[in-house]
């Protein structure tokens, strides 16, 4: 595994300046750069792939390393389950310690590579009044979406009408990108997930 870990770490060191610029409030300048840390064996951040945020910024999953993240797969034109999923993440966030609220990333990954362009995702955050500094809405290609969904345990299938059947799952990733808590189903209680996150 060593080669992969250090290749990823080397790539991260190249990306670190860009991330510091994009999300400077997330960085801890007094600490050594995350690039010095080898990636954990079970880290989801080992997945390759380039994503684009709702602000049009390029992002690799390994860029999220260093702070906990709440990751949820959804799609923008979904009017039933998906707004509930966004609200579930918001409810979880509101239960977090204020200090953690400043650190955690709320990552919404679209299943719909065709329709959910970064521009559409930006309009989505504006419609729902979501803070662009706190929420990351990611657009990627179909293969990378399938890879991430499968690692997290999200099943989905594109229907003929362009909509998606999908399982509903909110995943907590620790600072290394390891799956550390999962909330399955819609509108579930978030207290346990919050307690878990606060203790990370």
């Amino acid at each position, binding site marked *: *595994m*060593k*080669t*992969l*870990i250090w*290749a990823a770490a080397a790539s991260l060191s190249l990306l670190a300046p860009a991330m510091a610029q994009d999300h400077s409030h997330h960085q801890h300048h007094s600490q050594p750069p995350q690039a010095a840390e080898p990636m954990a*064996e*079970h*880290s*989801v951040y*080992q997945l390759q792939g380039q994503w684009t945020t709702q602000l049009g910024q390029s992002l690799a999953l390994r860029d999220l390393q260093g702070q906990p993240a709440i990751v949820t797969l959804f799609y923008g034109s979904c009017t*039933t*389950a998906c707004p509930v999923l966004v609200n579930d993440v918001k409810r979880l966030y509101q239960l977090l310690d204020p200090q953690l609220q400043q650190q955690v990333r709320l990552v919404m990954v679209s299943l719909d590579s065709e329709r959910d362009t970064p521009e559409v995702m930006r309009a989505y955050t504006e419609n729902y009044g979501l803070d662009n500094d706190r929420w990351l809405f990611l657009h990627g290609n179909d*293969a990378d979406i*399938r*890879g991430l969904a*499968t*690692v997290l345990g999200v*099943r*989905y*299938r594109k*229907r*003929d009408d362009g909509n998606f*059947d*999908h*399982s*509903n799952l909110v995943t907590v990733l620790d600072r290394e990108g390891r799956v550390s808590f999962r909330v399955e189903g*819609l509108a579930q209680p978030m207290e346990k997930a919050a307690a878990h996150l606060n203790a990370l």
Partner: protein
Amino acid sequence: MKWLGIGLCAVAFAAPLMGAAEPVKIPGGLFDTPVLLDSDTPSIAVETFWLDATPVTNHQFLTFVQAQPDWQRGNIAALFHDGSYLSHWPADTVITEQQHDAPVTYVSWFAARAYCEAQGGRLPTLNEWEYASVLYRQQQGLTDEDYARQLFAWYSNPGASQQQPVAADAQQLAHMHGRINEWVEDFQLLIQSGDEVDVLSGSCGDSARFLAKFNQANYATFFRYQSRSDYAAQNTTSTLGFRCAYDQRNEP
């Protein structure tokens, strides 16, 4: 079983390379799905694609891991396998003579995807693979009954045949059934009805609910859908391998 609306003569074959069968063209068409994941979508349009004529062999996979050491048994990340990855090989980059041309097994979905990506391809989708399976049955002249019999014989003793060599000079689809089960890109099934999600994990009523038409062949096919769906992407087993698909190939 309803035949595909294409003739065998429409299938173009690429010239085989030494030691490895070339991908074959699978002409697009309508796929009358034997398993109805959408009750209102009985047939699905499949675009033309190319599919490896045979499953990927141990030797082909060895060449891949030699070029990409991250995917060697001793290096692969824990995230991408269940602990048995390539455990049948004598060492990280050593295979036996008997394994050379046999389908590679003990490979996770992640490793299969990485291999196909390195070849400029990808794993076939479930619909593509099953559509090709129907074409294969036509090419082999398999009756529904023979197909079902072969498949159930394999299910009852799946380890018996996977170590036999593949036809390296195959010029049409080979070994689609009866050697190994094969990874596809979207192997996990899901049915959603409102907020309820059903992953078809094996209740007795599933087959009756989802078969387009209840007969032996569709029942055997459904068994494949279901067994594939029950795997986790990290799983590596003695009966699970893969072949790659391609969107574009140079016409011969």
